[in-house]
């Protein structure tokens, strides 16, 4: 039985890093190749030795598909392609291909900064890896090889994020990556065809959450920023250059406009331009509103948000600064943090680590990540109509909850890392049928064709250039330019009958005539008896004239009758 196998090397019942192996129709595909941000050693990368022992990934994998630029989805890619060695195709969308190296470079810096590590990929490796990437357009079917095809769909989440439909023959899998079913200020909502995949592999970060609280959280954020500014304080927002920062920028820009606020908002120099550059370049990937108004006004060219210079941090008075990196561990955001930490009027958001600093400023943690919540996941299921569900990228307990909900409708799997889920597929193969054959079947008085009521049809199946056609055998002969061959069975029956050959033949004729009343039986002048298509001849043995040899021959269609006659005649003729 054909089956699809899914083995997570990462993201199986966790949110550490995504790396999922799928075997479908003899093809092996790796979905995402992420890095675990919680480790500083080799444990941060997936262990590729589980895939093949001799380390020849190129021989094993047919392609790698990256869903979006977050490092827990693409961070191990240069390690895999340039250090372990993978030479095959890597697919991602255009924006992901453009932004991915920036994040990888940034992370390389963090690694060097933290540990001075040497066993880490270099800039050259990142570039060489990116050269292997084949960009994907949305809704465009890409043929990886003769049999494997992939198609990307919009996933929201971050700029360039995509879901991907993978198809081999009539079997298919959809991998969602991270997605968001509700549009936000700068991105649209995920969308997919009703493609009815055999398995829908979905993230489940917010599997137990129904998030109508997004607006509240935004209001809360604005309120806190506003209060700090009113007090004359400074607000530091550590962010990553590209990702959710743009969402917050639009949020603040609109708020500043509405409230007519004058306090300056800054964004780390260089990065604003870079971010704007990418948003302009990939404007089609943003939401409808931004696209529509782009000609009159670029939403990413902010009136209130200006480029930040190091010296501004010492300026008196209130201000808001977006600074990188988001983890506040080094660079500009840390430097500003150190400067402002001593003042209780100031605020930082978020603040994920402890340092030996006398921190008097207020610290608020807020998350603005964009994942589908439980409602969103169900919504996607309704859209794609999968046969089976497989949950990844979520915590086990939360997945279990959602699994319970989903299983009321169909199978839902949640393999742990290293565990393989096998789903038996029952691929229905579409076949074209000739009108003639259909008419003939109808003429036989069967019911009208109905997709809901399967029935047997007889004909010849022609497989030609990836298409299947059922036609009548005559038409098949004509189309394929073949001659019709007759298949005949022959058998010899020995008989003791002390008569002449012609008498014996006549005796056979009368015997059969008496037994087989409904059949056409003829005694032909050429010395044969024919029962339907069965020919019977008689000859005497050279040694013994009484011993007769009956030669029976019949066509394939009369197989039943032929075998019946041979066994009948073996019993001898009536005396």
């Amino acid at each position, binding site marked *: 039985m054909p089956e699809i196998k899914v083995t997570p090397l990462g993201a199986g019942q966790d949110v*550490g890093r995504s790396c999922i192996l799928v075997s479908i129709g003899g093809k092996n595909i790796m979905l995402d190749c992420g890095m675990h*941000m*919680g*480790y500083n050693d080799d*444990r941060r990368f997936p262990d590729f030795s*589980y895939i093949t*022992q*001799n380390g020849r990934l*190129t*021989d094993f994998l047919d392609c790698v598909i990256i869903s979006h630029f977050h*490092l*827990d989805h693409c*961070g191990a890619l240069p390690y895999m392609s340039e250090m372990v060695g993978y*030479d095959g195709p890597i697919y991602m969308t255009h924006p992901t291909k453009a932004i991915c190296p920036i994040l990888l470079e940034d*992370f390389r*810096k963090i690694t*060097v*900064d*933290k*540990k*001075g590590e040497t066993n880490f990929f270099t*800039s050259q490796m990142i*570039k060489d890896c990116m*050269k*292997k990437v084949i960009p994907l357009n949305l809704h465009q079917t890409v043929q990886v*090889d*003769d049999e494997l095809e992939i198609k990307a769909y919009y996933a929201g989440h971050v700029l360039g994020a995509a879901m991907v439909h993978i198809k081999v023959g009539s079997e298919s899998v959809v991998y969602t990556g991270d997605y968001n079913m509700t549009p936000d200020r700068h991105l649209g909502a995920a969308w997919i065809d009703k493609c009815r995949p055999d398995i829908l592999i979905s993230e489940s*970060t*917010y599997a137990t959450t129904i998030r109508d*609280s997004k607006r509240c*959280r935004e209001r809360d954020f604005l309120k806190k920023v506003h209060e700090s500014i009113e007090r004359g304080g400074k607000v530091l927002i550590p962010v*990553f250059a590209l*990702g*959710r920062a743009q969402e917050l920028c639009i949020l603040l820009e609109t708020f500043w406009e509405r409230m007519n606020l004058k306090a300056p908002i800054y964004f780390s*120099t*260089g990065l604003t*331009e*870079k971010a704007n*550059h990418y948003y302009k370049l990939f404007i089609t990937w943003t939401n409808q509103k931004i696209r529509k108004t782009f000609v009159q006004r670029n939403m990413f060219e902010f009136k209130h948000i200006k480029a930040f210079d*190091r*010296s501004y941090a*010492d300026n008196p008075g209130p201000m808001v600064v977006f600074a990188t990196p*988001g983890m506040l*561990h*080094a*660079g500009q955001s840390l430097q500003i943090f150190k400067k402002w930490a001593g003042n209780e009027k100031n605020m930082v958001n978020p603040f*994920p*680590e*402890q*340092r030996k600093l006398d921190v008097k400023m207020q610290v608020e*943690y*807020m*998350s*603005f990540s*964009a994942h589908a919540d439980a409602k969103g996941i169900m919504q996607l299921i309704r859209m794609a109509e999968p046969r089976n569900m497989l949950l990844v990228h979520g915590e086990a307990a939360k997945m279990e909850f959602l699994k319970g909900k989903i299983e009321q409708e169909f199978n839902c799997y949640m393999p*742990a*890392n*290293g*565990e*393989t889920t096998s789903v038996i597929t029952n691929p229905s193969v579409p076949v074209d049928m000739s009108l003639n054959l259909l008419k003939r079947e109808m003429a036989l008085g069967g019911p009208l064709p109905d997709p809901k009521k399967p029935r047997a049809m007889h004909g010849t199946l022609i497989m030609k250039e990836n298409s299947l056609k059922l036609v009548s055998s005559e038409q098949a002969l004509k189309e394929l330019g073949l001659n019709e061959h007759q298949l005949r069975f022959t058998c010899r029956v020995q008989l003791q009958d002390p008569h002449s050959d012609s008498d014996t033949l006549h005796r056979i004729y009368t015997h059969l005539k008496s037994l087989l009343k409904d059949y056409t039986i003829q005694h032909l002048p050429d010395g044969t008896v024919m029962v339907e298509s069965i020919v019977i001849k008689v000859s005497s043995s050279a040694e013994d004239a009484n011993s007769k040899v009956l030669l029976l021959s019949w066509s394939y269609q009369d197989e039943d009758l032929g075998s019946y006659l041979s066994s009948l005649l073996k019993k001898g003729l009536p005396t």
Partner: protein
Amino acid sequence: MDIQCVSVLPRVCEVLAASGSSLPDDTSLEKLLDWFTATTNTGVSLLESAPCLLDFISNVAFSSTSGPGILSFTLKLTGLIAASEDGFKALEECSVLKLIFDPHHWKEAGLWEDPCLRIGWIQGLRKMLQHSKALRLFVQADLIEPLLQLQTDSSLFVSSAANQLLAHVLLLYQSLSSAGCNGANKRDLEHSGVSEQTIISCSGIITNVSEYLKKSLVLKESSHPPQSQQILKLLTLLLVQLRPPLQEQLLLTVIDSLEELVTKRWSLPLMDVILAANSSLQDDCVSKQQIVRLLSIMLYMKKPADVIQVAAAFLRSRQHDPTHAAYAAGVLLLPLDIATGISLLKTNSTGVDLRILMTEQLKSKSCISMICVCLTNIPQITVMAPDCLPCPQRLIVAAVLTFLRLCRGDSSSSSTACVEVSRFVTGSSKVQKCAMEALSELSKSPEAEALLADVFKLLTEYLNSPDSDPTVLQKSYKALINWIGVCRDFSSITDQLREGLMQAVRKRACDIRWEARDSTVEFLGHLAEVCPIGEEREPLKTLLGSCSFTIPLLKEALQDPESYVRASSIATLAQTLTFSWQQGAALTQEQEEIVTQLQEILSQDSEGFARRAVVKFFTAWFSSCPSPTSCSLLMQSVPSVLSQGVADLDWEVKLHTLELAELLLDKTFPERLPLHPYAVISNQPHTCHAGENESDLLCSLNSLVDQGVVPALLCGLVDCDRPVALKACQLLIKLRDTVSSLLVNAADPRVSCMLPGQSWVQEMRGNKDAHTQGAPHVGSESRDEAAEETPCTDGDAVCVSVCEVLRTLDLDKKLSVLMQSSDHIYNSPLSLLQDILTASTAASNPNSDPGQEVIVDCY
């Protein structure tokens, strides 16, 4: 163990034991275990320094609410502690050991189903099994049974770890029993804790394992292929790791099953078993002959796709078996022979049947994967002894060239096989890449030179073709470089060929795909690199008419919209030009133009890659110049490169700038040996310049200030990126030690420099505050006077006395801070323990903000 950690640990243990299944972060337990392991490795006894761990283990093991995560951790920790005999004894005394490693206990609790617990069980045992007492426990508790069951576990991670553990158990048994055999002296054995009884009781394991393997390898209709594959993997592992006689003992029990598998259900893991047995068994072993026979059976199989895999695996394993090697090489070359029509093999060397079957197989889609295996293994063939090779390497090159033509749809042969194969391989970049790699490798073949023109022609065709995939182009360039690199005689390259290559390079340099443009620019750089400088880069001139062709292309590429290409073109300019510029010839307009353009890139380019390349260009130029100071254009540009580079936003631009500064520093004080970055820094001022004229030193220091080296170092010192600050600090220490004689006296105002921005002044002020609070300081008696002085400011810029700065700054202290990783506090064991405590408090507080549970969007 740190005293603070010891004091926090009991509380952490309490919290963890009570955490049930709600753990804050899956990595924190792993890291905690890392810390315990590291502590144990330093020779510290965990139980002595943290007795609370014993209670913790008992609490978790006996609690019915412990979740699989915490149990898994506890199992591993138990194993770690029980690895020492004292720890083992202590755990045994509180009767926790048997219980915690008893799978039935966990099965009854319904936890065995969780792969995380099974992994913990395996890894805990693996850690514990270091001594005979542990092995005895393993045997007495009959743990071999559950371990054997785990060999084919549904989790890849579990089964693989179980394979490793089983091998470890057998190795331990082997080493203990060999101690028993060799030691002869019974007393010695008892002394080492190995009783004869232990060995006898442990020998039951071998029987168990043998029977298990035998049973698992019997071919059954119902046997699940992935499971038998896992057993074969296990067998390979055991054969590689074990020694005789155990090795052969195991093999003998399974050899009949192996034979059946070889004839009925071939697989690559099976081949690995046979190869492992063949290479690890000694020649006098009983089963050796049988293994060699099985190897022959596999190699002489008739199924094309399988036999190719077997041949490849055989050659990769580098077995010393010339006859089989020659046959395997023949099998691997067969598809090429058939597809190209070039007779690589003597008639019938691989048998007529195989040739017929292979020809048939090549007419189907599967020909792509077969040909790829054949091509990727060509390197294994080329390293074979010439007498084993089925044909001269020249013919293999010719076949690969013909095949590459076939891949472009250009087939000169009309044989049916060629036509059929070309249907599938034409335009397949997968096959093209494999063939290009093979061609690159073949450049090492002894007759390479004679074929250069052919290779050149074909690669030019590929470079010219608009259909070539960028990855194929990249590999074509690589092959070309490899071939050019090994050749000395370029007489076979006609003008027509050269023109063809130049045309192709020109075309690709303006390809629509940045990947193609970048590979082209990189190719020009590699070409300059492979061409030996001593011979005036003859090949470069011969092939591309020297710089007159490349420079305009590269200058064009400096304007490329893709920053990667701009960076590559700058790097290539450095590789191509710096050699010719060092000759001290008169300045050309082109040189000035390029330098100006590079400086513009450094100040204006929005991407870091290009700016990094510019600084590296100047570094390459400077270091390739025998006398840089006499090159006026270089010396004019250096100050602005340094000042712009160090103020850049990209950390690597800043770091490369400091590397340039280091070159200048070394040039100015040449006799001083470069200081190793990790060398112990003496607190004594360096005295090797005692005899040196003070005014010379002053003069040198002044020139460093003028060149912008000192300001760059001082700016770098206060940089927010740690690697930059560290490098600057190291260089400043080097400078301080070199000019130490100037610093002994009171501040010398004769050398001063301007620094932009206020942050530096703050840094210095901060330093002085620290000094007045009694921080250690490099010898300066007039410190207080210096502290009185305030640097004079001019707008945003500040003017400082270099000697005073060098003397006042506590560079050694700064260095020790900077040497620490920027996350050293965050990554310390104490921080980890506190994190666990904080997270548990947050989790147990029902009023905590629900938004806090999501910390997944950081990247």
